[in-house]
């Protein structure tokens, strides 16, 4: 019932959003009056910032990690052009496609190349940038791999970004090789340089940027591809927005802005402001060049570098935000999970048997034999709750998060606002709902065992005093049950802290998303992961120690 209501509410909110035309300054352009966006007054753009010079995190003059790249500059230009406020959402590359498909964002800007499959789920703007596709290799293989035919061997591993055009190119051009797809270009380049991959398909400009930073990277050839260039993915069916985007692109090209954006971005990506720059050869990947069999040993030396921690330190703002987000995620998840779990536990333990009358004899007493008595014992509430718990506990939380975020919340439009300047409600909320739904199933069993651990005589005493079922629960059973299960609930909290890391997949800016931002921008992989490990440990270990302390104190009280 509640869900239906929420859906209706969401639907009516949608209608409202669409009924009220976005405020726009009056001009002659035809789209101005009809322009609508996902969030009124905002232009929401999804991007995957691991794609220098298109989009990446660069350290600005103040030492703060900032989203940069010519896509970002163009996005800002377009937002200004349309008189909207720009809102950037960072997700993985395939996340950009999903966001557009579910109409959670207005635009996707990630060096998208138009293709027939993609046309089905989004509209494309005019080509705004003529890039190309490249096949790259490392110096170690430069002699062996001189063309795509050379790379097309079964014992070669070839990388490409998940969900990208390059992945298709890899599949068509090097079908015999083992093709691995990874969500981040950084990871692909890193594998290539460490000898785990022999070649990779990447965007030409991206390849050239990486090459400036990593001379060991070799561009083998340009890969022929029919639509040479990048377009902006536009939320499907939004004609005024498409028109506006195209107008903005034209304007940016006519006034020379686009050219300037590209120049600046390439400069930024290649210049010393771009983290991960190859200085005195101190980059993890470089050691991989010698020979593949020595690579492991060599990279062992270079596994962790102090210098790279210094790089990570520059992104500390992202980590601080990540910690706050992770803690908030965990607290709200446990709260939602607890309320849900309480309801589920009560449903499971309820005595709601609507078909009981079927098993009654003439005198009105229940029979305990025969098929009718079985039917009479059927409890739909308990059945539903049990099914819920079993389904949730038997499926991966990642799947649940995707279903909740891309499935359920694509039908419900959430108010879009940002708390503390980095916590995006429309992502955070589905995140805590999905985690809460998951955690509810586990907490349900904890609460159930807690209730069952309370002596049956307590209920009998309460009921014999005339207390109702609910009064008994509230005053007698739950206070005792909760005391028994408090440690288990707190442990679930620790589990959630760790499990919440999965929400970065839907664009929640938690600790893991900080790790990915650093990986994508600075081309250091191990160090941000170690930092994240340390942070998670510092969050979880003391928490579980505190729990253990209270657990001991509480059991002491019982023995008194």
């Amino acid at each position, binding site marked *: 019932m509640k869900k239906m209501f929420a859906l209706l509410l969401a639907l009516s909110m949608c209608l409202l959003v669409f009924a009220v035309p976005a405020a726009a300054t009056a001009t002659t352009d035809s789209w101005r009056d009809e322009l609508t966006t996902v969030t009124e007054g905002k232009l929401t753009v999804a991007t995957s910032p691991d794609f220098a010079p298109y989009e990446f995190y660069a350290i600005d003059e103040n030492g703060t990690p900032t989203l940069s790249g010519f896509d970002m500059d163009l996005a800002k230009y377009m937002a200004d052009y349309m008189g909207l406020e720009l809102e950037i959402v960072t997700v993985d590359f395939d996340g950009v496609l999903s966001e557009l498909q579910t109409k959670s964002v207005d635009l996707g800007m990630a060096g998208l190349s138009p293709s027939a499959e993609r046309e089905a789920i989004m509209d494309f703007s005019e080509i705004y940038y003529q890039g190309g596709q490249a096949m790259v290799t490392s110096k170690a293989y430069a002699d062996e791999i001189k063309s795509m035919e050379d790379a097309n061997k079964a014992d070669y591993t070839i990388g490409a970004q998940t969900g990208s055009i390059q992945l298709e190119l890899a599949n068509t051009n090097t079908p015999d090789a083992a093709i691995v797809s990874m969500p981040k270009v950084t990871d692909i380049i890193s594998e290539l340089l460490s000898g785990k991959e022999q070649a990779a398909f990447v965007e030409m400009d991206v390849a050239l940027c990486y090459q400036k930073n990593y001379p060991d990277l070799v561009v083998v050839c340009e890969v022929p591809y029919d639509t040479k260039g990048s377009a902006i993915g536009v939320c499907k069916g939004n004609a005024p927005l498409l028109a506006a985007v195209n107008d903005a692109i034209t304007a940016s090209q006519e006034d020379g802005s686009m050219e300037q954006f590209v120049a600046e971005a390439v400069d930024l990506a290649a210049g010393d402001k771009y983290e991960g720059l190859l200085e005195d050869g101190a980059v993890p990947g470089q050691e991989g060049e010698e020979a593949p069999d020595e690579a492991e040993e060599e990279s062992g030396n270079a596994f962790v570098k102090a210098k790279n921690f210094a790089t990570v330190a520059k992104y500390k703002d992202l980590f601080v935000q990540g910690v706050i987000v992770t803690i908030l995620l965990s607290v709200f998840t446990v709260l939602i999970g607890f309320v849900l779990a309480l309801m589920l536990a009560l449903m499971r333990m309820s005595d709601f048997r609507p078909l009981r009358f079927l098993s009654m004899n003439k*005198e*009105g*007493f*229940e029979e*305990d*034999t025969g098929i009718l008595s079985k039917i009479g014992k059927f409890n739909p509430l308990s059945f539903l709750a049990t099914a819920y718990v079993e389904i949730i506990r038997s499926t991966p939380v990642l799947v649940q998060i995707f279903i909740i975020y891309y499935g359920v919340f694509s039908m419900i439009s959430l108010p879009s606002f940002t708390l503390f300047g980095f916590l995006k409600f429309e992502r955070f909320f589905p995140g805590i709902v999905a985690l809460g739904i998951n955690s509810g199933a586990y907490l349900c069993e904890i609460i159930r065992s807690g209730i069952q651990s309370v*002596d049956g*005589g*307590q209920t*009998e*005493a*309460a*009921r*014999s*005093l*005339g*207390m*109702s079922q609910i*009064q008994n629960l509230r*005053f*007698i059973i739950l*206070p*005792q049950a909760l*005391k028994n299960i408090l440690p288990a609930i707190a442990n679930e909290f620790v589990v959630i802290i760790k499990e919440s890391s999965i929400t970065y997949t839907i664009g929640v800016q938690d600790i893991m998303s900080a790790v990915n931002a650093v990986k994508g921008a600075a081309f250091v992989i191990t160090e941000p992961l170690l930092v994240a490990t340390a942070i998670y440990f510092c969050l979880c270990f003391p928490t579980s120690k505190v729990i253990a302390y209270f657990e001991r104190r509480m059991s002491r009280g*019982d023995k*008194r």
Partner: protein
Amino acid sequence: MAIRDNALIQVKNLKKYYNRGAIKALDDVSVDINKGDVMVVIGPSGSGKSTFLRSLNLLEQPTGGQIIFGGVDITKKKYTDENGKSIKLNLDEHRQRMGMVFQHFNLFPHMTIIDNMTLAPVQVKGKNKAECEKRALKLLERVGLKDRANAYPIQLSGGQKQRVAIVRALMMEPEVMLFDEPTSALDPEMVGEVLEVMKELASEGMTMVCVTHEMGFAREVGNRVLFMADGKLVEQGTPDEIFNNPKSPRLKEFFAQVLK
């Protein structure tokens, strides 16, 4: 019969079966409990004494029969009032009028003694908390536990706990008190203090049904004794009739065993 008019609780053909009738914990028990009765239920272990007592306030759902309390058959979900209107039975209301004391006390361990006593009157009957506390202290004083009002159950001895359990039930001002072996879990030296409280209660005219193995108490305080065996009410009478002049062989056998 004159006794009938006086009946507070009429039990008619009460049955409680387990395992599809394989176990007959109560087998056709009929008895009237009159106002002011101190009815003592005796019998061997497993004879259905607890089941009988717990059925009286529907802690045990009977398999058949009737329990008429205050003119209403409380084993049924609905009843018809004087005007022929069908009314849904409120079991909680009936339970408020029957106090129950358990073998294992069942005090609420997370509450102080005084809170144990005031919770139900305040929450169920909506009484004023301060007044309830005043009354609770008076009752505690009568059972000699006034100074323990703010203690937790875990800090009391068994005998003290059971005295608290009795006054907790009295806080609801019940019309009848049900006792299920109230002294069986106590060390021998504490039995007396609990029986003393029960005796006093009986002398004040409280209607009581007691399952007990304390034959001395049955003789001295009870005005009626029921003897149960194998779920059946085998014999009943005054203490004098039952103890000095048992008729059924089953009862004689029972006395031979317990009074040895």
